């Protein structure tokens, strides 16, 4: 009995309070978005807000069960859970009926379930267990490979289920790996990779104004210039040689300047795109010579970086224009601001922005949103639930919700850092990274900063599957954390 009392005392009530607050806000937002002006009802269990209340009830029950399970069980069962979930994921592809092109929903009795939601949980457990094993280090190629295997296997299966959005969330484990010692350069490279990808698409194929038959691809030009500048900064950072950095960047700048002068005199045969290729090729040649002269291996890394940039641009170019479906190209282009398509792919984002934007500072008031209730905003109680809050509670309400998430994530960082066992810490970081990615992608999409990727907003969106898996995810960590406290209390 005393053990139970101390267990409940050891729970982190701040996290639980944040959780309950968010779930409650979510319920009110769902109530409002499904509110029908014509037939107002207070509470109706056959309506969406009614079923959400039931899901929330089950979620609290699940939270309780999760807390009551012995914390050692999670560590012990991690591999088995991971294995079973992978099997379930594979089975789903064959068993699930096709809903909107995806095969990810399983129907068990009255409940529809998305195993992909649970896959995040299983992966977090498995990763925690594997990386906390004795003498584990990320520096070993074999370990890197195995870690990659653990993360990428469910991800690939989910892509096969046509749920690209959910698969993308697995990128969240990058943050965990970073915390656990992965070289920071990978983070920088991943960031640069994403940046170059976006910039390339944004400036790809804009024909030069004066001469329309000469096709310029400023995507290449911009990415190559940024790559060269990046290498310059690397030279300064790793080789501590500022003079060489200036020479390197300046030499390239002269090339572009010469091209500009040629263009001024009407010689446009040498396009900026060609110059970009000349500049990056000469840079590689220069670095190769320097590597031989100074016998510095680091130069080879720079060369790999530049070759990587060239590859990135060409692969993106090919992938975007030859692999992606036109509607997928459109989605990406709309977000990058390349296309304005108010009735097509841009419609959802546009209506969602109108909804949030029309909220103003204080919002239109609970139940008074017109954008969301009149169905201008699609999926208003699932993926676009934040829109209801933005419209009815305004800037203030949106910021409050945003701050609740930040508070939760930072609280989880604090909890993770105070863990004594690596397993708990790694699991904790997994939880907060997953929550962070979900929130960032979802809200970013709703306010028009991120492409339309259909993933729910943690704790707020309608639906049992997502709420339950996040509840289990969060409360498993709360249980692990409480265990740490238990040890302290003894």
């Amino acid at each position: 009995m005393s053990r139970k009392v101390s267990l409940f005392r050891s729970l982190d009530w701040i996290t639980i309070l944040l959780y309950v607050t968010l779930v409650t806000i979510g319920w009110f937002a769902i109530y409002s978005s499904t509110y029908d002006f014509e037939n107002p009802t207070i509470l109706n269990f056959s309506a969406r807000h009614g079923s959400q209340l039931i899901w929330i009830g089950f979620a609290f029950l699940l939270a309780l069960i999760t807390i009551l399970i012995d914390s050692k069980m999670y560590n012990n069962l991690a591999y088995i859970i991971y294995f079973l979930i992978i099997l379930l994921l594979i089975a789903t592809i064959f068993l699930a009926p096709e809903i909107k092109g995806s095969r990810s929903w399983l129907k068990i009795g009255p409940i529809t379930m998305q195993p992909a939601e649970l896959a995040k949980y299983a992966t977090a457990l498995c990763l925690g267990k594997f990386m906390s094993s004795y003498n584990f280090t990320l520096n070993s190629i074999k370990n890197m490979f195995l870690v990659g295997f653990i993360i990428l296997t469910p991800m690939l299966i989910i892509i096969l289920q046509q749920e690209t959005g959910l698969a993308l969330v697995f990128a969240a484990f990058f943050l965990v790996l970073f915390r656990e010692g992965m070289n920071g350069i990978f983070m920088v490279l991943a960031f640069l990779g994403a940046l170059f990808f976006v910039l390339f698409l944004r400036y790809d194929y804009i024909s030069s104004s004066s001469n329309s038959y000469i096709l310029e691809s400023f995507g290449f030009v911009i990415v190559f210039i940024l790559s060269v500048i990046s290498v310059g900064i690397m030279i300064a950072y790793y080789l501590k040689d500022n003079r060489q950095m200036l020479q390197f960047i300046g030499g390239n700048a002269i090339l572009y300047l010469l091209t500009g002068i040629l263009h001024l005199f009407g010689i446009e045969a040498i396009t900026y795109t060609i110059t970009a290729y000349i500049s990056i090729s000469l840079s590689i040649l220069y670095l190769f010579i320097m590597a031989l002269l100074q016998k510095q291996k680091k130069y080879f890394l720079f060369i790999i970086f530049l070759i990587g940039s060239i590859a990135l641009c060409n692969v993106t170019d090919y992938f975007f224009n030859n692999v992606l479906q036109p509607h997928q190209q459109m989605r990406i282009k709309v977000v990058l601001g390349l296309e304005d398509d108010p009735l097509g792919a841009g419609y959802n984002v546009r209506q969602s922005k109108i909804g949030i934007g029309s909220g103003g500072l204080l919002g239109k008031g609970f139940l008074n949103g017109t954008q969301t209730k009149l169905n201008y905003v699609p999926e208003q109680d699932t993926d676009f639930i934040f829109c209801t809050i933005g419209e009815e509670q305004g800037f203030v309400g949106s910021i409050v919700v945003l701050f609740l998430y930040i508070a939760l994530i930072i609280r989880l960082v604090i909890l993770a850092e105070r863990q004594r066992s690596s397993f708990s810490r790694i699991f904790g970081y997994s939880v907060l990274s997953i929550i962070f990615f979900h929130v960032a992608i979802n809200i970013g999409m709703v306010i028009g900063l991120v492409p339309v990727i259909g993933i729910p907003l943690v704790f707020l969106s309608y639906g049992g599957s997502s709420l339950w898996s996040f509840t289990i995810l969060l409360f498993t960590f709360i249980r692990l954390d409480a265990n740490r406290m238990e040890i302290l209390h003894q």
Partner: protein
Amino acid sequence: MKDSLKNQELRNRQYIIILIVLSVAFIYIIQLFYIQIADSSYKENADSNAFLKKVIYPSRGLLYDRNEQLYVSNQPVYDLMIIMREIQGFDTLSFCKMLNINQEEFDNRIEEIKDKRKNRGYSRFTPQIFMSQLSVAEYGKIQEQLYKFRGVYAQQRVLRKYTTPHGAHAIGSVGEVNQQQIDADSYYSRGDYKGQSGVEKEYETYLRGEKGVEILLRDAHGRIQGVYKNGERNKAPIAGKNLTMTIDMGLQEYGEQLMIKKLGSIVAIEPSTGEILALISSPSYDPHLLVGRERSKNYNALLKDPFKPLFDRPLMAMYPPGSTFKLVNGLIYQQEGVITEDTRFSCRMGYYYSRTRKLGCHPHPNNLDLRESVQHSCNAYYCHGLKGLLDSPPSGISTTESYNHWRNHVLSMGFGKKLGVDFPNEKGGLILESNRYDRIYGKNKWKSSTIISIAIGQGEVLATPIQTANLAALIANRGYFYTPHIIKKIEGDSIDKRFREKHQTTIEQKYFDPIIDGMLMAVEQGTGRVGRIEGIEICGKTGTAQNPHGKDHSIFMAFAPKENPKIAIAVYVENSGFGATWAVPIASLMIEKYLTGTVDTTKLNRKNLQKRMLETFLIE
């Protein structure tokens, strides 16, 4: 040691992770600030998405005649509205089929709507009229299919409906506002209706009421999801005010029938109030012609009609008043002391105003007094009077001054300027100022012989039929009149106070008696004998308006009964010659109809008179 240092380095990475989280949050807050606070266009977009502001048109005020019989009412019609932004994926083929138009007509109409030069208020977001004024029957046929077409709906409007096809000029018509009218009054927007003539125009602000608005919520599929805030922001339309006209519908109808296929006017006034009992302009037209989709087509046809049916003769046609004007002069000569009722002048088949120049007269007993001069309409009598007035004024003033006195008297009787009736487009007639004569003939270079024709209502004197009718009314009243008007009562309001003001003329009451006696004699045994009615004392005066373009116009003005008069009337029949032939019988029949409610056709002479008036066509 190295291990714990490594651990410390890794522990510090938590701050980088927190920094990443905060940076993302910061970018999102900036974006939220931008769309929610800095940029107001989202709010407008949301409103234009969600709110469908539906105008609810009030019903226009009804018009009743003086006996409270319904004269003008309303009928519902439907405008087919279209919101261009919403007609994507529109099944044009079945839409055209429904409306019984072809693809080309559809395309043309859409082009017209989009053309900002023709349709200045065009917007993709607001309802535009695709087809206007569908009748209830036409609307009934398409009503059930309408839901199939997104962005199309019907807007109910009201059009005028008339109990009888009479009184078109008095009532006037209602038509769509033009751009000028929209610019002038912000109440109107495209497609609104407004009174364009007659009472409809003059009393527009009372009749139109106030438009209401219903704010509906419209969902993403264009479906109406109910009323915004339970109608809290709605505004109910306020119906226009009902008006009671002074017109007697029976008399108006009868007058129009008498004037069939004749050009001219009848104006009947109740002398004690100035209320217009009948206002007839002939040829007239059926007011229904100017209602509905055919309005502009019919309007153009009426405009081209050589007999000018749209011309409002009683108020706008100016004629020389002819002999009716002798009454005015008879009154003034007495007031100025030029003559008394017993003064006699000789007439030698006319009046010699120089040794060689004569203004002719017709045969009648010689040496008439004032009463007899009215009875026989002697020209010479009034020329003598004018000579006395202008050439040797009794008060010893100059000719010019005396003329100015004369003019003031004339103006006090409602001539020479607009009467100020409650009717648009009224004309004022013409009575020249003395300085005009100075300019024509030179200062002090003119006298009675120069302008002798004004003595008998010719020359530089012009008056409208309503001014002549007003003259009859003021004589009936023995010296005063009320401004003629056509609206008797305004629901919940009172008529303009200018119609309740008594206008006293400058002529003393006693001078009216000989004139009225003469008018009675004219009808009993003088120029207007043909109009005599057993048992009703009619006082009247014939006239002939000279017409340089053709046959003279026949004029008759009268009031009846002599004591306590109930009706004053002026009848003009164009191109019909001497006054007695046409104008007198028509006036006489009108008077009988009004005073007794019917024309007594048991009397053979009255029956024949009526038959002749109804069946004689002066124009084809």
